[in-house]
């Protein structure tokens, strides 16, 4: 191995598969060097506030081109949530709603969602970490009605949704409530 290649274990560290503590002592310095490199990348950021109005201005100029399909028969109107019927199944009498669940948990290794819609199965609905800031999300299609749920952090900690109403679960914890 040439001198500028990271040890395979250090690469696993960079991949997030192992931690610094898992490295043998002789590789710690190399591991720390690698993490410093990564930390420098992860902290960098770029923002482009002008893009929004530039895009919308460009669309305004194109508006006429879109008139035909703007006037075409539309999908169901959107409110805060969009109710719509899935084509084919379920039947028209069973409206469903798309719901995006979000939890900010920077320290979590895994987050899932358990509730009345999945028989409280803490393995059934994992959330996906969407960025380096620890935002976990899942988007579900749920039948209209009422659902109770909680997030399960690292498979053991039941956490109510901090932004949703909650009720006593009868076991000394809180369930979040979603009324659709």
């Amino acid at each position, binding site marked *: 191995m040439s001198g500028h290649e990271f040890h395979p274990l250090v690469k696993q560290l960079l991949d997030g598969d192992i931690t610094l503590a898992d490295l043998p002592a002789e590789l710690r310095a190399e591991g720390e060097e690698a993490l410093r490199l990564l930390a420098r990348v992860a902290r960098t950021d770029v923002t482009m506030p002008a893009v929004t109005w530039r895009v919308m201005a460009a669309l305004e100029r194109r508006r006429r081109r879109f008139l035909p399909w703007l006037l075409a028969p539309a999908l169901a109107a959107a409110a*805060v949530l969009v109710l719509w019927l899935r084509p084919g199944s379920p039947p028209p009498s069973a409206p469903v709603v798309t719901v995006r669940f979000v939890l900010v948990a920077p320290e979590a290794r895994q987050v899932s969602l358990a509730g*009345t819609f999945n028989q*409280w*199965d803490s393995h059934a609905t994992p959330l996906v970490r969407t960025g380096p800031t620890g935002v976990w999300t899942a988007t579900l299609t749920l039948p209209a009605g009422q659902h109770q749920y909680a997030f399960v952090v690292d498979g053991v900690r039941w956490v109510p949704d901090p932004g949703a109403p909650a009720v*006593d*679960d*009868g076991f000394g914890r809180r369930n979040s*409530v979603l*009324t659709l």
Partner: protein
Amino acid sequence: MIALLAIPLTVLSMQQAADSAIAQRLAGRVPPQIASLVEDLGTAAAAHGLPIDPLIQKAIEGSAKGVPPDRVATALRVVAMHLDTAATALRDGGLPSDTLAIAAGEFAISAGLSGSDITALARTGANAAALTVGLRVAGTLAALGVPPAEDIGLVSVELRAGEPASTLLLLPANVQAEMAKGATAAQAAAGLARAAAAQARHGPPPGRGQGHPPPPHPPHPPAPAPHP
């Protein structure tokens, strides 16, 4: 004589059906003693026209959360009690037995409302489907911290106005929006109730339906008033 025999047989077959449904849904999900308790409570509930789903859900939830069976049993008895309270409250409000409305009432009670609150909502004269949504929304508002008086006041106004379910379902989000501006939960609900009552008296506020202003002149002459 046949009729006299038919009644207990019907009850018996309903109980067997309830037992079977419960056993099927709980199989492999809860400890045997909890399954047995849910069957007992569920059979009694079904015999009184109460829903069994809240019991099954609570048993599954407790076991999934790793709650000790004795605590699950306590929670189940509380649910059974709430179902009974909700059914009585709905009957007092003039609503005949409706399992969905009773389940919604059970939720409202678990969220902090009382039997008399449920009766008050039932007395709005809303039909069972609308009342079911109203009870669930009222429970959600209670879970947001809206006190019972303001909660029932707001939901009652909407139910009396015959607002559709989609409007009722927006109430929690509307209350949250007002709270985000600095109002307390009570102030938010009271303000929304005043606005809804005013709207019921005078029609929609300016701005609503802006995209469709009435034509300056009616396209057709008004229809003559019907004869009394």
